[in-house]
């Protein structure tokens, strides 16, 4: 049984087509990611799934109900990209208030602990930092013990430590059997957390695959940068079958190629007694895949 099924979703705002044609389905217990450039239609898509917007056409089923069905409100937790609280409301008051909305709320103290907000429970919303507001927003989305959590820009605005803590929290929630739909701009986050990713561009799904699968589509291009101990002629490396391109940036050299590139390059350099200092190797990443898939023509 699929948990979320989106078929040929389309939504426009006046003249602006926000979502042209989006279809995907999310399986139980899965962490499903949505990636895409700004304005691609990600938020519009998840807001349609959350029942906040009515699609112009297409069909969305969530837990067997039509999106927007009131039976879903206690079973789906939503963190909106832009949504605030009253400035004078304290963190604790907000959590207690929102707990009272749900038939079977989670223990908010636990959530607040996991999200590193315990020291701030008495603080008013207006006095929280951006990242702390974001953490509270995540807590509110998870407060109802939802079967599905829809999180739009989960970790935007969080510092690196808070981001990692949130990833741990999300993994823990998934282990409890919750299905997660994440919108994100962070490739590392998508790579770490997501079982599958839909890349959306200009309102359409341009790729839907596992993170590994997406990376493969970008090709297995590799990039080596180093500073040679003595200078050498380009041909020394460009004659190697693994090397496609050699560029010089001052005293640094960048070699682009594929296959067993590192081994081939190092062997030749070693043979001629050249030491490669400050050596780095970059492999194709989800970043490259993303740029490759959504490059504007």
């Amino acid at each position: 049984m699929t948990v979320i099924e989106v078929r040929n979703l389309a939504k426009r705002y006046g003249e602006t087509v926000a979502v042209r044609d989006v279809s995907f389905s999310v399986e139980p217990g899965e962490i499903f990611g949505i990636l895409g450039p700004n304005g691609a239609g990600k938020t519009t898509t998840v807001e349609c799934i959350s029942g906040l917007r009515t699609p112009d056409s297409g069909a969305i089923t969530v837990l067997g109900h039509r999106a927007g069905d009131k039976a879903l409100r206690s079973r789906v937790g939503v963190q909106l990209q832009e949504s605030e609280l009253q400035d004078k409301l304290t963190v604790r008051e907000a959590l207690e208030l929102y707990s009272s909305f749900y038939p079977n709320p989670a223990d908010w103290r636990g959530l607040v602990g996991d999200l590193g907000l315990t020291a701030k429970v008495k603080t008013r919303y207006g006095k929280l930092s951006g990242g702390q507001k974001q953490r509270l927003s995540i807590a509110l989305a998870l407060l109802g013990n939802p079967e599905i959590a829809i999180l739009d820009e989960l970790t935007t605005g969080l510092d690196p430590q808070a981001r990692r803590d949130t990833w741990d929290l999300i993994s823990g929630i998934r282990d409890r059997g919750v299905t997660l739909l994440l919108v994100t701009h962070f490739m590392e986050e998508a790579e770490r957390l997501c079982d599958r990713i839909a890349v959306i561009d200009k309102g359409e799904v341009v790729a839907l695959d596992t993170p590994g699968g997406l990376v493969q589509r970008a090709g297995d291009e590799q990039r080596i940068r180093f500073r040679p101990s003595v200078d050498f002629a380009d041909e020394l490396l460009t004659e190697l079958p693994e090397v496609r391109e050699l560029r010089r940036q001052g005293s640094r050299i960048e070699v682009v190629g594929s296959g067993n590139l590192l081994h081939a390059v190092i062997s030749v350099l070693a043979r001629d007694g050249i030491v490669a200092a400050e050596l780095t190797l970059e492999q194709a990443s989800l970043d490259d895949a993303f740029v490759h898939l959504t490059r504007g023509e």
Partner: protein
Amino acid sequence: MSVFLKLTLTELKITFREPVYIFFTLLFPVLLIAILGNVPTMQETPPELGGLRLIDVYAGLALGLAIGIIGLQGLPSVLATYRERGILRRLATTPVRPGLLLGAQLAMNLLTVLVSAVLVYTVANLAFDVPIPESPLLLLVAILLNCSGAFAVGLLLAAVAPSGKTANAIGTFLFFPLMFLAGLWVPRELMPELLRRLGDFTPFAAGQDLMTDALAGQSPAFLSITVLIGYLVICGAAAVKFFRWE
């Protein structure tokens, strides 16, 4: 505790963290009475007032001022801000309907007006011998009707204003003429016929007439009741129809 009660208490709590709100709704009306009560001319009984003194009429006006401030300034700008900041949208993702927060705001403001009424009439009675109405029930009905007109207008403002700032601006723009017609500067009874007639059809003036009727022990004016219920029904329905949740 029901969710509505919890929402109302929460709204009450955060509103009372707003010193400006407390000042204008609870302190200012009492202050106004305390100051006016010490002005000698306020003890006069112009024949138009049918036996009441000016200060007696101003007790109702002081409360009407608080109702006007809430209806035209507090309510619309708070609700428009709730919309602007996505608070209503966030609620829409929970089992609670965002309309309940509107209801909680109305209940909270009504509660504030009732507390203010007790303060105003207690001070007015103890310090300046303003009579306590023979029928407190009529006074309560007058206050409730006065609020329903004002709050319905406020809701409609919140519904159509594009932002909290605009809501505030329109509210302020309406505030002074409506308060003038209600008699805040010259009591309605002493106004030229034309202005009084004009006032009959505005919410705060109609509300003020009911307050005076209750104080004088007269049966409430049918026209004022009709006008206020008209505002409640028409502005209320329009607000429900046009309210944008985002």
